[in-house]
């Protein structure tokens, strides 16, 4: 299964990025094969609707689950339409979150915010 996380830098030891739509990178992890790849987030510089575009990218990559601190309502609509499950990230690295995910310790992300629209959103 392919799992995506927004991440600050190209390392599995890096922390999960607090922003979903404007993260610089995503890491896509194949939990069965144990492989991973990094994906530049083309939506990061969007004038508007970054979350929508970022979600579209993940849908197109065939992602089945997303681990994130939070997600805006427009992006959530795209992810939901594609049946991508959203999990709430925990403090720690990508590796820590993947381990927790495999152990079934991550809860589903139920809090969907109305979007920051270029105003803040930098903190967890």
């Amino acid at each position, binding site marked *: 299964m392919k799992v995506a996380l927004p991440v600050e830098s190209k390392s599995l030891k890096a922390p999960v990025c607090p922003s979903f739509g404007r993260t610089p990178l995503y890491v896509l992890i194949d939990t069965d094969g144990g492989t991973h790849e990094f994906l530049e987030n083309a939506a990061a510089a*969007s*004038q*508007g*609707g970054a979350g*929508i*575009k970022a*979600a*579209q990218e993940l849908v197109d990559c065939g992602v089945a689950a997303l681990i994130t601190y939070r997600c805006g309502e427009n992006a959530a609509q795209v992810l939901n339409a594609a*049946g991508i499950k959203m999990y709430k990230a925990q403090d720690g690295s990508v590796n820590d979150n993947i381990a927790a995910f495999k152990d079934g310790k991550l809860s589903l992300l139920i809090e969907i915010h109305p979007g920051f629209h270029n105003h803040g959103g930098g903190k967890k």
Partner: protein
Amino acid sequence: MRIAVLSGKGGTGKTFVSVNLSCAAEQSVYVDCDVEEPNGHLFLKPEITTKAPVTVIVPEVDMDKCIRCRKCVDFCKYNALALVKDKMLVFYEVCHSCGGCALLCPVKAITEKERAIGTIEEGESGNVRVLTGCLNTGEVSGVPIIKGLIDKLPKDGDIVIDCPPGSACIVMESIREADYCILVAEPTLFGVHNLSMVYDLIRLFDKPFGVVLNKCLPEENPAEQFCVEHQIKILAKIPYDEELGRLNSKGHIVAREDERYRELFERLLEALRKEAIS
């Protein structure tokens, strides 16, 4: 003469100056462009003659015709479209109504439909014709409503445009057709900071302008200092006056009820005419 009244922050007295200025004129049009929270009508209490919706165009996608080429999705600069599992999601509030998606679609699967985002009310209040723009709750941009208001303005006569606070797109749209701009400032450091932002904006637009200093106290006025430093014309000084505050808070128009204030705003109008000619 089209006079736009603006300020960097809310609460400096834009509506107070605009309403009183329109009442001091013999005949005038007052236009409330503060479409997120129009409040000039609370003072002018116009008798409404017409109320019409303002609409924008948004795309509608016929999925039977759509060939999933994604040209529209990739084109949209605001990411208003997403194609997921054979379904096109359209985010109306993100759409800027450019029409590009419909133009690009190779199979004409996209048509445009109208969506209401607010209203424009027209009414009369004595010598003042009142135009009020009102954006529906939850909508993102008031620009189309302001465009609609500006389109309705008569060519001649005294027109006072009550602008939204700040210096963003909706303010730019409001002052575009103005002959003269009044910046209203209050005597606080916060007020000066916001005054300097609209000052920068006005200079970009190359409009003639001057400042009305509101709520003036006997103490030093940082907004006045800013004007002196930047050689900005001070059009009028309105004192901090508790009686004025009381009348205003009850929705009274001082230029219609108090001789002193009537004269103050008549003088301001006179000064504006001279400024606009020179």
